[in-house]
């Protein structure tokens, strides 16, 4: 598995917020994908769109509830089509399967079309250690591979890179003159990879969906790299998570509508490639061998937990990233592992282990925007709360997310709020302190304004490090009430 940096979340996100270049890149995504998505919903009409969402969720819910049955059916039909289906419990097992195929088939060059699961497995270094030349062929993935980085978005992996970054990278790694024209850079990638497509012995792809009824692997791409990877080399390996199975070919239409429109706002991607088994004897092209590897790698933990099971309905459209106010400020890398954004904050802790990623579920204001845009109606905020609860109540003290001081504060707050007399006393003392503070020139706490910028006492000051608190009002609601606010004429109350 690739390096897990989920425990560095605080530091990484603070650094990301301060990065103006990243901010510009993230603004571009928000305005691009999100606006196009809204146009598509208007075009379909919101009623129809909601109907699709409900239907898609029902299909996913049914399949996941009967995952064993559909995996069995899939196995039967992949085999019947002349392909091979392999199951892997974890990353190592999946990588071992690929390694076995690579060694026994004498593979020298592999082309890959975008696969988040292969990122999750850390497959590329394994292939390289076997002496295989590995080429990522999606332009974004190719850039990331050259830069030796990880994707920062589910759909646009290199979005954090500016055109100047890419131009410099191409100069450094490909030895070509610096040229920041985006069209020229895309043409360079085309030229480099064109040869590789034709030379490759192995094509590796992910899968957006896998159809149990026919044993069919479905990938959607815009560049055409997916089609080349799955049709030119003599061996094709598809790798994906076990949750990607859907029952019937006819279930696909709904997902082929929802996925591209939610992801990039396109009505459909340029290419949809469906593969069922290897090349038949009459076919003009296609691989001689077709392998499908389905991985668990922590997914059964989500399956086993009714509160988190629906995370497995995700179709990785990225809409929740594009709308998330937290993602919009910190980008994908701060999340520290393969899956960023709101859904990543649920999935990563489940895949790498909650103790290592306990800060991720905190990275949300629980505004609910992700739930609203999700094409399969996944209730992400509910799951984030569930994960927070699990961390807070963990029997192992060291695993609890909140420091002792914060828990103490929470207890104090609960006491205060449940006793009117205590609260009243606290407000009055606070106001006295506030008045005194205003007498001091350059008042350190409120800086003379309406917000508490830096609360006194180390305990409270931590809280205000990234938040402002409103100052205490001159009169509380209770005090106003006692003064007879209730007796005023109704027209005055309406103001």
């Amino acid at each position, binding site marked *: 598995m690739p390096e897990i940096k989920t425990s560095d979340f605080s530091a990484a996100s603070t650094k990301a917020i301060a990065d103006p270049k990243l901010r510009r890149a993230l603004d571009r995504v928000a305005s691009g994908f999100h606006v196009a998505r809204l146009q598509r919903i208007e075009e379909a009409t919101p009623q129809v769109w909601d109907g699709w969402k409900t239907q898609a969720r029902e299909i996913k819910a049914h399949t996941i509830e009967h995952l064993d049955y559909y995996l069995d059916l899939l196995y039967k039909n992949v085999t019947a089509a002349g392909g091979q289906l392999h199951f892997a419990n974890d990353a190592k*097992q999946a990588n071992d399967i690929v390694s076995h195929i690579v060694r026994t088939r004498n593979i020298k060059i592999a082309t890959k079309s975008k696969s988040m699961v292969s990122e999750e497995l850390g497959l590329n270094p394994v292939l390289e250690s076997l002496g295989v030349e590995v080429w990522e062929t999606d332009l974004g993935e190719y850039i990331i591979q050259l830069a030796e980085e990880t994707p920062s978005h589910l759909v646009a992996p290199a979005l954090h890179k500016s055109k100047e970054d890419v131009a410099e990278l191409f100069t450094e790694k490909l030895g070509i003159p610096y040229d920041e024209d985006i069209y020229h850079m895309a043409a360079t990638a085309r030229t480099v990879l064109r040869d590789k497509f034709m030379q490759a012995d192995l094509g590796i792809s992910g899968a957006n969906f896998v159809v149990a009824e026919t044993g069919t692997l479905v990938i959607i791409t815009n560049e055409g790299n997916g089609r080349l990877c799955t049709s030119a080399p003599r061996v094709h390996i598809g790798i994906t998570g076990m949750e990607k199975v859907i029952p019937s070919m006819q279930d696909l239409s709904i997902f082929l509508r929802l996925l591209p429109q939610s992801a990039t706002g396109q009505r459909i991607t340029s290419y949809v490639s469906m593969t069922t088994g290897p090349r038949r004897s009459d076919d003009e092209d296609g691989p001689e061998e077709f392998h499908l590897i389905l991985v668990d790698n922590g997914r059964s933990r989500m399956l086993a937990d009714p509160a988190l099971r629906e995370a497995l309905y995700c179709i990785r459209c990225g809409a929740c990233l594009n709308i998330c106010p937290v993602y919009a400020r910190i980008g994908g890398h701060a999340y520290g592992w393969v899956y960023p954004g709101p859904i990543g904050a649920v999935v990563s802790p489940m895949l790498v282990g909650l103790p290592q990623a306990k800060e991720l579920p905190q990275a949300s204001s629980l505004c609910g925007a992700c739930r609203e845009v999700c094409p399969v109606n996944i209730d992400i905020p509910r799951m984030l709360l569930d994960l927070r609860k699990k961390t807070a109540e963990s029997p192992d003290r060291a695993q609890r997310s909140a420091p002792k001081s914060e828990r103490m504060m929470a207890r104090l707050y609960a006491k205060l709020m449940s006793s009117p007399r205590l609260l009243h006393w606290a407000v009055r003392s606070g106001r006295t302190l506030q008045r005194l503070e205003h007498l001091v020139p350059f008042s350190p706490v409120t800086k003379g304004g309406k917000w508490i910028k830096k609360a006194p006492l180390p305990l409270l000051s931590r809280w205000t490090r990234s938040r402002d608190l409103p100052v205490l009002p001159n009169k509380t609601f209770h005090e106003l009430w006692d003064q007879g606010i209730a007796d005023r004429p109704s027209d005055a109350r309406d103001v």
Partner: protein
Amino acid sequence: MPAMSDQSLGVPKDEFLRFVREALGREDVPPAQPYPRLTDSTTDLEQQALEIRQKIQQNLPALLDKLADMAQKGGWNVFRAAGAEEAVGYLQDLARKSDLSAVVRSAQGVFDQVPVDAALTSMGLKVTTVLRDEANPRESLREEIRRSGMGITGADFALAETGSVIVLPRKGLSRLVSVVPPVHVALVRPEDVLESMDDLFLLRRLEYHQQGGEMGSYLNFITGPSRTADIEMTIVEGVHGPKEVHMIILG
């Protein structure tokens, strides 16, 4: 390489399914309600296919208009040809503009209707039909495809809903013809048109069942040119696939 004893690497299927059932917290039971679609009989599907065909018959002009509209929105250059002659004329113009020397085409029925070869050869172009035989092994055809400036194919279906051309595996139809050359032209006959993806997948399921569980090794949608927005969200056309795509609708 001889057949390997690796039919299933990794965890044996039954063991894997047992883990899944453990996670689901239950025994090996099939869905209480059988999934509606999976219980369709071939006769049911045939009946539905008949209805689809009738619906298309009744709405053909409107469907062709919708196809043209959606295809154009999806990035195709759409040309509606009144007959084979106009289609050939359009191709010749295109060849002239694109400054080509070699063209590849697939071997499909539509080329009996539209005499592409004669028209393009008369302009001094080399036209290769991608059809494997003793004289033309796969490798030499591949080279030919790579050298060509234009690939011409028919369509197995065309979807009005999305403006997509659907290609299925056939003898004489290499996927590379539509994806490798920088220009792709698809010839669409009125009888290829379907209204929606729902229609398409129903017809494919029917064929799958009629053929005793075989539907061919692939099914591809093509909708517009190859494109990317991976650098600064700027759309660039023609990354790994064609930069320019044309749909000629014969009718």
